[in-house]
């Protein structure tokens, strides 16, 4: 009986730790993906035919696409001053600061804001998070792939 009590205590402690743990990018997307106020798109590896979207030559882009595993896009339309927008921005800021992301690009142009964050989640396994804020729209693009930092950054380095 005492062993059972110990196991139950350990399980309870683990559950409490899990509940109090900081929100992850996955849980953030899970939280809002089915929310009616948001638009959510998930693209798996099988449907990656987006090579023409990126800059650079076609061969490089096809190589890059083959390394991408998933793209998830979450969009919120609304006033920048709305409570929901503020809370979502605050939440994603916390996710970024606690998720070992490093800032790769930060640009601001006439009210348009683009932040690109990057993190390694394993050997050659990376997450790229693009946060865009513009008038009435807040978007998050989460790209996951088997890429190193240079390859991941190449995605948006051939602009113009």
């Amino acid at each position, binding site marked *: 009986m005492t062993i059972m009590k110990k196991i139950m205590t350990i399980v309870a402690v683990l559950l409490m730790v899990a509940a109090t743990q900081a929100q992850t990018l996955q849980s953030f997307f899970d939280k809002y*993906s089915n929310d009616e106020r948001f638009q959510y798109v998930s*693209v*798996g590896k099988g449907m990656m035919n987006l090579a023409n*979207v*990126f800059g650079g030559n076609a061969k490089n882009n096809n190589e890059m696409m083959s390394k991408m595993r998933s793209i998830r896009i979450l*969009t919120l339309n609304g006033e920048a001053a709305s409570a929901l927008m503020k809370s979502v921005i605050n939440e994603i800021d916390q996710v970024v600061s606690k998720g070992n992301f490093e800032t790769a690009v930060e640009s601001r142009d006439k009210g348009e804001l*683009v932040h690109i964050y990057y993190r390694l989640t394993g050997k050659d396994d990376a997450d790229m998070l693009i946060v865009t804020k513009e008038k009435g729209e807040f978007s998050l693009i989460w790209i996951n792939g088997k890429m190193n930092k240079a390859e991941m950054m190449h995605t948006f380095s051939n*602009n113009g």
Partner: protein
Amino acid sequence: MEMMNELLEKYFRGETTLQEEKELRQYFSTGNVSPEHQIYSALFENFEQEMKETAPRPVHRFLPEVKIRKRIWIQSFAITGIAASFILLFWIRLPQSSEDFAVINGKRIDNTEYIQRYTEKKLIKVNTMLARSMKPLQSIKSVRQNMQPLENLSDVRSKMEDIQNKLQFK
């Protein structure tokens, strides 16, 4: 006497209170029991005796250890099974999360063409926004390219100076 009869009837019906049971025990322990109740005295004396008995050792020592071990094993198997089910559940759910779909206004859309166009639109938008903000850098690049002939001019000048110097020495 009648009261004792009533109490005994109540006792055997299982309706006596603790106080009434105590009264019955006291009655049978005094030794002054009426002959018609003598048949029950052995029963109540036995109860009294058993109440006074104490366990010589903690009770759990008498429990067979094998049974406890068996119960722990069963519990461990049950817990492991529950944990395995959770892991399987998460494992099965993972591929679903990488499926191609969109959720617009709470409605799930599985139209691949729509998903493709939506994703393209968003990525192009980011590209455009980045290109716009990176424009000053491109301007610097183009200025540098335009300055290239001037750099060549300075090279030509230095070469001419070299030639001039050589000529003067001669």
